[in-house]
C-alpha cells in the first residue's frame, strides 16, 4: 500500500483530515532511494521490484513493477488544490458593500497579504441552491487528483450507486457522485449519489487488481474515462489484428469539495490481496450474530402489539421460519426514538418476551433526528450537554424530519457518541430487552427542508463544517449505536445494527441495505450489482428490501425476490406504509409454498453463511463476490452481475426476469465442475449453461472440490436449530478431492474472541473424508453431530468405515444413486467438533 497525502504547508486554518475511519495509523516503512536526478527520485516500494518514480516538474508519481507502470498519479496534470484564502471583497457590487462593511473593516489589514493571482468567481464565498444558501465562510477549498491505470478496462466500486457492477465511463455525463443523500425513488443506472459513500475503487485486468482509497468525507465526484470505451468490439478486434500499439487505459479523476488529498494505493496484485490491504486500513466486516443472517420480517409499520403477535403466529401457522420482526417509526411515541407509543405498544417487554419465547428477536428503529420537545428526555439531555450540531450562527441546528422540528446530535463528537451509546442501557431505554436490536435510518442525515434533503453544508460540528464531515455522519451514528448495544450487555453480546448511510469502515458496525427501492423487476436485478459493489469495498452485510419498498409487487416478483434475497447476505422483506400487506402467506397457497421453500433454503445454508461471515471478519474477503474475484484471469467474468458467488463454493444465478422460462448462467473455471444443488447434476466449468426454470427454480451450483455443511432440520428460527445435526455436501472435483470448513460457536457473544469456537477443516482425498482441527488452541463443545454425508460425483464403494477420535471403527450404511453418482452415508453420528475419518473402499 502506498499512501499519498497532500496538504497545504501552512494553511490559514487546519484542513479536515478524516479521523476514526482507519483502524490504526498505518505503520510506515522507510522507502529506499534507488536513484535520483534533478527532476525526481526513484524509490523502492520494497516487495516485488516495485518502485515509485516521483517527478517534480511536472509533478507526477508513477508506480512501477518491473517495466510495467501500474498506476500514474497526476499524469494528466489534474492535481488541484484550492488553498484556503482570505475573502476579497473588492469586487463586491455597491449594493452589498453596506452588508459587508463590517467584514471589510475587520479584514482590511489581512487583505494586503492575500494571493494576487486568485480571482474571485461567483459562488466562491456563497452559493445558493434553490432556496438554500451556503455561507462558505472558508471559501473554495476543493481538491482533485487524477490517476491513470494502464492496461485497465474494468473498474469497480465507489458505492453507493444504482449501477452495474462494472463502472461506466462518465465522458458524456455527470461523474459518479459520492454524497450521502436520502433520495426519494432513486433512478437506476445513474451516477447520482445515494445513501452511502465508500470512496474506494478497484481496477482489474487479467494480470492484476489494484485499488484506490480516497480518504475524504466531503462531497466527492469521480470521473472515469477510457481509451477503449468508445470502441466497438469490431474496433477492438481491428486493433488486435493490426497490432495496434495503444494499450487500453482507464483514467479516473477524483474531486472533493474540501479536506486534503489522502489517498491509499493498494497494489494487489490479486483481488484477495486488495481486500486484505483495504481491510488492514479500515477493518473487516463485524461478525454478526448468527440469527441476523436468517430471515427478517419488516414493514412500515406493524401497527400494534396485537399485529406483531398475529404476524408472528402467521409464520408458525404457515411453517415459515423467521428470526427478526421489525418495527418502523410508528412504534414510537410521536417519533421520539427510545420511546413506545403508549397505546399501540403499551407493554413492549411483554411483546418482546412473547417473541423471545419463540426464540426470535426484534429490531426497533432509532433515527438520529431528535424531536425538539422540552418534555422529551433525549432532546433535553442533548441540548443541555451541547451535543447538537450548530447552525452557522452558533445556535442548535434545526431541521424538519419525521417528528417535525428536529435537532441532529453531533455524532462526530466522541463524547456525544458515548452518551448516545449509554442511552441503549436497559435502564435508559425503557421497554428494551436483550432481544431488541437497532435500525438507524435517515442518517445521511435526512433533513426534509434542507438542500437536497440533507444538512446545510455550513452547519457546524465543533470547529468543522458539515461540508467536511458529511459522508461520515451515518458512519458515526451506526458506530455509536453498535457501541451502545455492546455496552448494554457488558461487552458480552455482539450487536446488530442496520444502517442506511455509510462510509469506508462502516463494515465494522453492522449491516447496510440499499435503501428505498421499488417493487419493480429492474430494482430486483440491480440489487445484485449494488451489493456486489459494496462487498468489493469491505461491506459484506448487504441486502435490498425483499419485495421492493415502494409500490406493490406482483406475486411473481415477490416470489422471485424472496428467491434472490435468500441468497444475499442481509435477507429482509420490507414494505412502504401505503402498500397492501404482503406477509408471505397472503398470495395463495402456491406462492406461500414457494416463499417457504426459498426461506427454508436460506436456513439450511446458515452454517455456510455463518462461516462466510467468520472468514470475512477474519480476512476482509467479501461474502457475496463477483465471479471475477475468484476467476480473475477469465475476462468472461469481468462484467457479469446477474449471478454471483457466495464465498468460493456457491454460485447463484437468481431468476430476475418476469415470466422467465430459463436463465443462462456462466459456470466459470476451465477445469472445474459445478453441481446443481437441487438435482445434483454435474456441469463443466467455463461454459454458458442454459437452465430451464419454473417458478420454484433458484439456480444454485456447488463448486466441485468443495464441502458445504448444512442443517436440514429447518425450524421456527435459527436459534431453535442451534443444536441440530449437520449434513455435509461433499462435491468432488475431477481430481476427486474436496475441502471445506465448519465453524461453530455460541452464535451471539464475543466469546469467540476468547477462543471459544470450533473451526474445522473438512477434507476429502484418496477416498477419505476427514475432519481436521484448524484451531487446536480454541475450545468449544457442541451437541451437533453429523447426521448425513452426501458425496456428489462419487463412485460406489464396497464398504464405508468411520474412524472416530478414540480410534474406534464402525461400518456405515450408505446408499448410492448411480444415475447421479450420489453417495449418501447414513447417520455416521460423530460429534461435529471432533476428529474423525470416513474411509470409502
Amino acid at each position, binding site marked *: 500500500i502506498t499512501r499519498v497525502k497532500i496538504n497545504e504547508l501552512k494553511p490559514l486554518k487546519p484542513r479536515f483530515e478524516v479521523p476514526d475511519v482507519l483502524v490504526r495509523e498505518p505503520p510506515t516503512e522507510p522507502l529506499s532511494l534507488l536513484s535520483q536526478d534533478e527532476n525526481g527520485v526513484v524509490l523502492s516500494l520494497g516487495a516485488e521490484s516495485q518502485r515509485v518514480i516521483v517527478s517534480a516538474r511536472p509533478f507526477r508519481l508513477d508506480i512501477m513493477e518491473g517495466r510495467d507502470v501500474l498506476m500514474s498519479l497526476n499524469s494528466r496534470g489534474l492535481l488541484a488544490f484550492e488553498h484556503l484564502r482570505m475573502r476579497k471583497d473588492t469586487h463586491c457590487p455597491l449594493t452589498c458593500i453596506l452588508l459587508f462593511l463590517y467584514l471589510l473593516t475587520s479584514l482590511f489589514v489581512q487583505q494586503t497579504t492575500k494571493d494576487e493571482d486568485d480571482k474571485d468567481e461567483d459562488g466562491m464565498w456563497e452559493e445558493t441552491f434553490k432556496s438554500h444558501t451556503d455561507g462558505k465562510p472558508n471559501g473554495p477549498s476543493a481538491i482533485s487528483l487524477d490517476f491513470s491505470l494502464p492496461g485497465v478496462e474494468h473498474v469497480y466500486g465507489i458505492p453507493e450507486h444504482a449501477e452495474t457492477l462494472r463502472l461506466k465511463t462518465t465522458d458524456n455525463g455527470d461523474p459518479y457522485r459520492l454524497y450521502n443523500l436520502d433520495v426519494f425513488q432513486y433512478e437506476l443506472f445513474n451516477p447520482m449519489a445515494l445513501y452511502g459513500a465508500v470512496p474506494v475503487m478497484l481496477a482489474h485486468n487479467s494480470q492484476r487488481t489494484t485499488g484506490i482509497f480516497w480518504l475524504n468525507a466531503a462531497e466527492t465526484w469521480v470521473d472515469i474515462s477510457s481509451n477503449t470505451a468508445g470502441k466497438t468490439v469490431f474496433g477492438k478486434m481491428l486493433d488486435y489484428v493490426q497490432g495496434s500499439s495503444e494499450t487500453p487505459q482507464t483514467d479516473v479523476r477524483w474531486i472533493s469539495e474540501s479536506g486534503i488529498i489522502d489517498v491509499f494505493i493498494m497494489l494487489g496484485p490479486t483481488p484477495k490481496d486488495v481486500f486484505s490491504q483495504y481491510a488492514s486500513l479500515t477493518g473487516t466486516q463485524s461478525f454478526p450474530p448468527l440469527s441476523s443472517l436468517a430471515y427478517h420480517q419488516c414493514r412500515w409499520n406493524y*401497527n400494534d402489539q396485537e*399485529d406483531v403477535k398475529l404476524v408472528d403466529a402467521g409464520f408458525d401457522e404457515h*411453517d415459515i421460519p423467521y428470526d427478526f420482526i421489525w418495527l418502523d417509526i410508528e412504534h414510537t411515541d410521536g417519533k421520539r426514538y427510545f420511546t413506545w407509543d403508549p*397505546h*399501540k405498544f403499551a407493554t413492549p417487554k411483554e411483546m418482546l418476551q412473547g417473541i423471545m*419465547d*419463540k*426464540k426470535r428477536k426484534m429490531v426497533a428503529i432509532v433515527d438520529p433526528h431528535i424531536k425538539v420537545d422540552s418534555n422529551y428526555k433525549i432532546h433535553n439531555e442533548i441540548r443541555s450537554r451541547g451535543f447538537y450540531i450548530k447552525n452557522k450562527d452558533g445556535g442548535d441546528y434545526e431541521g424538519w424530519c419525521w417528528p417535525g422540528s428536529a435537532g441532529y446530535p453531533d455524532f462526530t463528537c466522541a463524547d456525544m457518541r458515548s452518551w448516545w451509546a449509554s442511552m441503549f442501557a436497559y435502564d435508559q431505554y425503557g421497554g428494551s430487552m436483550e432481544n431488541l436490536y437497532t435500525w438507524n435510518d435517515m442518517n445521511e442525515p435526512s433533513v426534509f427542508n434542507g438542500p437536497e434533503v440533507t444538512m446545510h453544508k455550513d452547519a457546524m460540528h465543533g470547529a468543522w463544517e458539515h461540508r467536511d464531515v458529511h459522508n461520515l455522519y451515518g458512519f458515526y451514528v451506526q458506530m455509536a449505536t453498535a457501541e451502545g448495544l455492546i455496552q448494554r450487555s457488558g461487552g458480552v453480546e455482539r450487536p446488530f445494527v442496520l444502517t442506511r448511510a455509510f462510509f469506508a469502515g462502516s463494515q465494522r458496525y453492522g449491516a447496510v441495505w440499499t435503501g428505498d427501492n421499488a417493487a419493480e423487476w429492474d430494482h430486483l436485478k440491480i440489487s445484485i450489482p449494488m451489493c456486489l459493489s459494496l462487498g468489493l469495498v469491505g461491506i459484506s452485510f448487504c441486502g435490498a428490501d425483499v419485495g421492493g419498498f415502494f409500490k406493490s409487487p406482483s406475486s411473481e416478483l415477490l416470489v422471485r425476490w424472496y428467491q434472490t434475497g435468500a441468497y444475499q447476505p442481509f435477507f429482509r422483506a420490507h414494505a412502504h*406504509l*401505503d*402498500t*397492501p*400487506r404482503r406477509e408471505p402467506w397472503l398470495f395463495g397457497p402456491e406462492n406461500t409454498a414457494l416463499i417457504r421453500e426459498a426461506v427454508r433454503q436460506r436456513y439450511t445454508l446458515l452454517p455456510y453463511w455463518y462461516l462466510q461471515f467468520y472468514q470475512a471478519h477474519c480476512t476482509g474477503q467479501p461474502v457475496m463476490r463477483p465471479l471475477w474475484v475468484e476467476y480473475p484471469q477469465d475476462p468472461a467474468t469481468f462484467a457479469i452481475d446477474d449471478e454471483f458467488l457466495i464465498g468460493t463454493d456457491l454460485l447463484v444465478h437468481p431468476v430476475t426476469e418476469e415470466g422467465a422460462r430459463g436463465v443462462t448462467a456462466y459456470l466459470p473455471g476451465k477445469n472445474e465442475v459445478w453441481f446443481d444443488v437441487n438435482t445434483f447434476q454435474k456441469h463443466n466449468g467455463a461454459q454458458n449453461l442454459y437452465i430451464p426454470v419454473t417458478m420454484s427454480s433458484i439456480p444454485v451450483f456447488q463448486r466441485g472440490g468443495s464441502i458445504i455443511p448444512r442443517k*436440514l*432440520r*429447518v*425450524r*421456527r428460527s435459527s*436459534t*431453535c*436449530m442451534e443444536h*441440530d445435526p449437520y449434513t455435509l455436501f461433499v462435491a468432488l472435483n475431477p481430481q476427486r478431492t474436496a475441502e471445506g470448513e465448519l465453524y461453530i460457536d455460541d452464535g451471539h457473544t464475543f466469546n469467540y474472541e476468547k477462543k471459544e469456537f470450533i473451526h474445522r477443516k473438512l477434507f476429502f482425498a484418496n477416498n477419505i473424508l476427514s475432519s481436521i482441527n484448524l484451531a487446536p488452541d480454541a475450545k468449544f463443545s457442541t451437541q451437533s453431530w453429523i*447426521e*448425513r454425508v452426501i458425496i456428489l460425483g462419487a463412485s460406489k464403494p464396497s464398504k464405508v468405515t468411520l474412524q472416530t477420535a478414540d480410534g474406534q471403527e464402525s461400518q456405515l450404511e450408505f446408499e448410492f444413486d448411480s444415475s447421479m453418482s450420489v453417495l449418501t452415508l*447414513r*447417520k455416521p453420528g460423530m460429534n461435529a467438533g471432533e476428529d474423525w475419518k470416513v474411509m470409502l473402499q
Partner: protein
Amino acid sequence: MRFYVFIASVFCCAFADSRKIRGISSSYKRFYRERKSFLCIDGSKLIPFEQVNDDYCDCEDGSDEPGTSACPRGRFYCTNLGFRPHYIPSSRVNDGICDCCDASDEYNSHIRCQKTCWNLGQRERAYVEGQMRTLDEGLRLKQQLIEEGVLLWREKQAQLRELQQKAEDLHLKVEEHKKRKHQADQHKEQTLKTLQAGGAGSRQHNNTASGLFQFLDNNKDGSITVDEVQARVVTIHDEKRLLSENEAVALLGGGRQMDLTMFRHTLWDTLTKGDNVKIRDTNAALDSPVVEDPLLMAADRAAKWEATNLKKVEEAYETVNMEISDLQQKLAIDYGTDWEFLFLNSQCYKLQVYEYTYTLCPFNQVTQENTAGTQVSLGTWGMWAGEPKNQYSQMVYENGEPCWQGGSRTATVTLTCGTETALRSVKEPSKCQYIMDFQTPVACQPVLKQRGIHSEL
C-alpha cells in the same frame, strides 16, 4: 332448546404394545406394530424396525420418524390428555419451545415444559361452554330478530303498498289537475284572443247596434252586464278611469243587465250620440296591458291557480315515488334468508380505537372520525362477501374517501355470533383497508353447535 357438551373418553391401552412409538396417534398404531421391518406409510421403502424413531430420516414421507425432528415433512402427534390432541410439524420436536400441553414434544431438550393440558382443557371447556351459551342465547335472540324481521319486512311491504296506492291516487289527481289547468289555460287564451279581436273589431262593429252589442257582450251570453260595461265603456273626459258600478248600472237603465232590444233603444243612442260616455279607445286599451282587462285577469288568476295546484300534486307524487324507490332499494338489499339482518338497517354502531371513532351503519356506510371531528368515509354499502357456504359472514363497504396513493378506502366487516349487536374491533392492516369485527346474534349459526370437545383421560 338445550345443547350438551359431549365428553368422549378414550382409555388408552397402555400395555397393548411392547414398545411405545413416540409421536403417533392411536389410529396410526397399526402401522407401527413391532416386526422385523417397517414399511414407510407411503410404501416407498422397507427399513429395519430399529430405524423407526432413530433420529434419521429414511422415509420420504417422514413416517419412520414420527417422534423425532429428523424428517422435514414429518409430524408429531401430541396426545394432550385432558385437552385437544393435535399434530405439530416435526421441526417443533425438541426445539426448546413447548408446543404440546402434555410436554411430549420436548422430551430431549433443555427446557422444562409445564403440563398444562388439564388447565387448558378446563379453560377450553369453559370457553366452549361460554360459546355454547352465547350461541344458545344468540340463536334465541336471532329467532326473535327473525320474527321481528319478518314483521318489519311485512310492515315495510305494507308501507310500500300504501305508498304505491298513494302514488296511484296522486297520479289520478295529477291527471285531473293537468286537465283543469289545460282548460283554464285555454280559457285564458280565448279571453286574450277575444280581447285582441275585440280591440281590432270595435270600430267595425261600432256602426251597427247589434255589432256594438256583440262587442260589449264579452261572454257572448246575449246580455250586457255591469262588468262588461265597465270593461269597455269610459267617460269622455277621463278615458283611463273605470266606471263605477253605479255609473254602469245607470247606463244599463238602472238594471244589472241589458239585452240587445233594450240596447238599441237606450245605450246605443247614448253611446253614438251622447257626449258623456264612449267606447274605450281600443288603441289606447292596447297600449295599456291587456291584462288590466278584468276578464283576462280573472282568467289568468284561474290559470295560475290551476298551475299551482298541479305543481303541488305533482310534487307530492314525486315525493311518494322517491319514497317508493328508496324503500324498494332498501327492500332489494339481501337481508338474509329470513330477513334477519333487516333490523340493522337504519341503525349505527360506534367504536373508539386509539384516536379514532368508527361508525358502522349497516347497509349504509362506514365512517371514521378523529378527535378533531374530521369525518372520513371508509366506504358505502357494497355487498355480502362471505364464503360461499355462508355469504352472510362478511360485508364489504367500498368507494370511501380516495387514498393518498390512489384507490379508495374500503371496509370489510366480519360478522360474528354474540348476544349483543356491537362493533368489536377495527383494524387497518394496510393503509386505507379497514377490517371490522361486528358481533350480532343474527350471525349465530346453528352449525357451530356441532363443535365440541372431547378429552382423553
